[in-house]
């Protein structure tokens, strides 16, 4: 029982990070029907930028408290990633807006490779460790342990997602985003500047990715120029699981995928008599992707889109 609870907690924490990244995929897909494969790399850039700022502040003579230093790191990573998301859309995707759908998809993969290599040139090939400047405390809950960092990640992600739902469903901007997602042409006939809405979508997704990147770096204590690749693919699986294009679906898919992965990693050793170990945890995301694509391609919350006859 305690291993189940432990893996459930770990899964929900990991899943809330997946959900934040998955939102970026799903929001862009919802409006452009483009899978922005460079999104994982934006997460990586978020982790790297925050880490650079954190190390700079630790090395400085300012002697700031640990929480303050991490906060400054996040506060730098967010605008950096927002700017990056904006530039990527403007330079790489907008010129291809009316091109066949394969062209922007391949461009996205190209952007992803460019960002990986740029990060490698700037920060090197080695793993960079996140300095443990905030003391980790662990609490016992029903035989499982949970850390202050885990609690923070889960609650902060939940707040961000609640905020996003409010934005999308309760504001004029959110209404324009949903209208644009349904029909850019009809939205433009309402006076909506569709290019601005698309730019805002990229900027919002990138801000969430930046935060997720810092969370991943802090959670595993490591950052690496290649870290965005697998994280991005898993978040993409989460978005497809929830129903790509559906915001609530991305949240649900992220949490579910995190839990499936954690429980899978926790039990795979016992189930296979020790033949496969917990390092096979990455298999589960792609297993889920295959199962979803075979049995429910529209995802859990995705609508089988039937527009007027």
């Amino acid at each position, binding site marked *: 029982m305690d291993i189940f609870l432990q893996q459930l907690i770990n899964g929900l924490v990991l899943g809330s990070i997946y959900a934040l990244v998955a939102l970026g995929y799903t929001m862009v897909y919802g409006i452009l029907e483009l899978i922005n494969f460079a999104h994982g790399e934006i997460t990586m850039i978020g982790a790297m930028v925050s880490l650079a700022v954190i190390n700079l502040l630790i090395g400085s003579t300012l002697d700031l408290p640990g929480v303050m230093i991490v906060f400054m790191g996040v506060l730098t990573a967010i605008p950096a990633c927002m700017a990056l998301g904006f530039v990527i859309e403007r330079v790489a995707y907008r010129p291809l807006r009316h091109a066949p759908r394969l062209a922007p998809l391949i461009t996205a993969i190209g952007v992803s490779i460019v960002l990986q290599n740029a990060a490698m040139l700037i920060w090197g090939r080695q793993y960079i460790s996140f300095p443990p400047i905030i003391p980790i405390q662990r609490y016992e809950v029903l035989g499982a342990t949970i850390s202050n960092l885990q609690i923070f990640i889960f609650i902060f992600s939940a707040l961000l997602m609640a905020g996003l739902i409010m934005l999308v469903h309760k504001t004029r901007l959110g209404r324009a985003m949903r209208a644009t997602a349904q*029909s850019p*042409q*009809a939205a433009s006939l309402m*006076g909506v500047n569709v290019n601005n809405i698309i730019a805002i979508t990229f900027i919002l997704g990138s801000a969430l990715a930046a935060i997720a990147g810092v969370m991943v770096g802090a959670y595993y204590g490591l950052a690496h120029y290649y870290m965005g690749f697998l994280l991005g693919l898993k978040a993409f699986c989460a978005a497809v699981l929830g129903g790509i294009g559906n915001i609530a679906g991305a949240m649900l898919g992220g949490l579910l995928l995190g839990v499936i992965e954690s429980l899978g990693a926790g039990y795979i050793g016992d189930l296979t008599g020790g033949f496969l170990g917990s390092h096979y945890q990455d298999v589960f995301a792609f297993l889920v992707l295959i199962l979803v694509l075979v049995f429910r391609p529209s995802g859990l919350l995705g609508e089988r889109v039937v527009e007027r006859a």
Partner: protein
Amino acid sequence: MGAGSAGTAAIHGGRRLLLEVKNLAVAYGGVQAVKGIDFCITRGELVCLIGANGAGKTTTLKALCGLVPTAHGSVHYQQHSITNHPTHEIVRRGMVLVPEGRGIFSRLSVAENLAMGAYTRNDHAAIKSETDYIHSLFPRLYERRHQKAGTLSGGEQQMLALGRAILAKPQLLLLDEPSMGLAPLMVSKIFETIRHIAGQGMTILLVEQNAKLALEISHRGYVMESGLITLHDTASNLSTNPRVRHAYLGE
């Protein structure tokens, strides 16, 4: 321009001219859908553009709104060129199109669709009272305000599209085939509403295949054939014109 330019000299002279289209041409790929047309609309007029399927009527409206690029020619609106301007800027200047197929946001609620109509405005009190006015014109929209717009019938969707366009406070309202696919009872309800808002001073360009209905409520009409305007006259003259009667009124 064809025969019978009755009264146009006076119209062109005044500063009541709202829209002036000169030598407008639109091409898709190599195909010329609109081959150089001229027309104009003055404030307060209800003008119809009639013609058979594929004559270029819808393409003309799309070109006015910047939804398709023009090949050559010019569009002047309120004495300014808006040729090839972005659609959202044209809408913000008060030229509003209800497109063919209505352009309803089917996954947004009826109320949210109406709110999208007022997207460019922030005079909240006026929007509220005009939304009430739309509800009084179409009580069905009020009854179904929380429903997804995709669940409405075709006629209700057309009411929603019309109401939404009125909420944008247009100076010039462009209607593309408002009768398309609707039951006869609903068609007469929609046309009654068009006549009503025109009577309150709204300037309207109505594109219709149903020439009989369109000519009944319009002041003037243009007839379009294969990308060209072949006739232009007052609506009453057009409805007695033998060519129009033969080709479009089924006599």
